[in-house]
């Protein structure tokens, strides 16, 4: 019986560690939708979202409608303040939003403050930023900035993700398209120290 010998213990280490690693990676990949077309929502909703915010004006701190991409968007805020006359910079207090790509795929987000810069095509969420998706994944961070022209989403502060896969904590995170011309593919980058935890068999 060689079950307990040193060689088989080495094999056992590999047998336990390597499939486990594969498991956690595969789980992490499910952070993002399997179909790449869904990722491109960032590209398709950009201008219509910004136009909606621009048209919303100071008297309409809520919006419910369909975007150019066909997705449904709901926006609520306690206050919307324009920072200059041409409404290029808009501050939104106590913002919450719900984006519905289809009946089964949706995401909600909220933050203490939102800052939309129409001319620079950026939207920033600051203070207790949290987002939740229909896939059971929730994200919490102190700040989140969307660069629509670059199809880039970036956090400067610590980001915490929780989902069926477990948890991920990182010093900062970036999400961007690699090839804006082809419109396919994305990169998700966690920086400044990454800690992933995955519980299995529970």
């Amino acid at each position, binding site marked *: 019986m060689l079950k307990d010998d040193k*060689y088989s213990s080495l094999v056992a280490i590999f047998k336990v*560690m390597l499939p486990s690693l594969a498991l956690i990676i595969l789980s992490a990949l499910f952070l993002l939708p399997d179909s790449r077309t869904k990722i491109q929502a960032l590209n398709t909703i950009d201008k219509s979202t910004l136009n909606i915010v621009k048209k919303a004006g100071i008297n309409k701190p809520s919006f419910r409608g369909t975007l150019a991409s066909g997705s449904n968007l709901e926006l609520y805020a306690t206050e919307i303040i324009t920072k200059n006359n041409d409404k290029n910079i808009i501050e939104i207090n106590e913002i919450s939003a719900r984006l519905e790509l289809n009946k089964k795929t949706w995401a909600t987000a909220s933050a203490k403050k939102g800052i939309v810069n129409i001319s620079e095509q950026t939207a920033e969420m600051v203070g207790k930023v949290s987002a939740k998706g229909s896939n059971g994944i929730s994200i919490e961070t102190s700040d989140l900035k969307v660069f629509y022209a670059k199809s880039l989403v970036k956090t400067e502060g610590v980001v915490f993700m929780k989902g069926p896969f477990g948890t991920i904590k990182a010093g900062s995170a970036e999400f961007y398209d690699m090839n804006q011309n082809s419109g396919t593919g994305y990169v998700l980058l966690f920086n400044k120290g990454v800690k992933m935890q995955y519980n299995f068999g529970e």
Partner: protein
Amino acid sequence: MFFNVNKTLKIFSFLACLFILQISQVSADTNVSLGSIEMGKSGTIEVNSDSLKIDSNVGIATFDGNVEIKLNKIILKAQKITVTYSTDENSKQEITEILAINDVFFISNKDITKADRALYSLSDNTIKLSGNILINQGSTSFSGEELSINLDTGQGTMSGHVKAILGSDE
């Protein structure tokens, strides 16, 4: 001092297999065929690294800088771990291989396996270690340049200046 005969015999059996097979192989490779051990059915896997990059264009996830993966008392350390997965939209998202490079360590209690490079292929469930391999198991150690193990069968081949030092664990 207590002399563990059973353990020593097992080590000796292993070494005997190792050396006999080494001699019998024209290629001077070492083959051993041993049983397998079941992995745990539940637990927590923890991964720490300086950064993690998931690139869907090429289907590669990279843990970079001081990578440490813990599962119960088993630890895998490396400077970089690259995970390749299928990017075909029509197929299921599957991992094809995991590559660990630079200062690769597998640690389990007192057992430490070190190599420059470790490649785990999921298609044939094999792991290939290469470069300055050193397996330390108590007072027993093995070294070589290449080690290939089929994780289904437990059969392994070690080659390249294979050296074994037999000791007795007190």
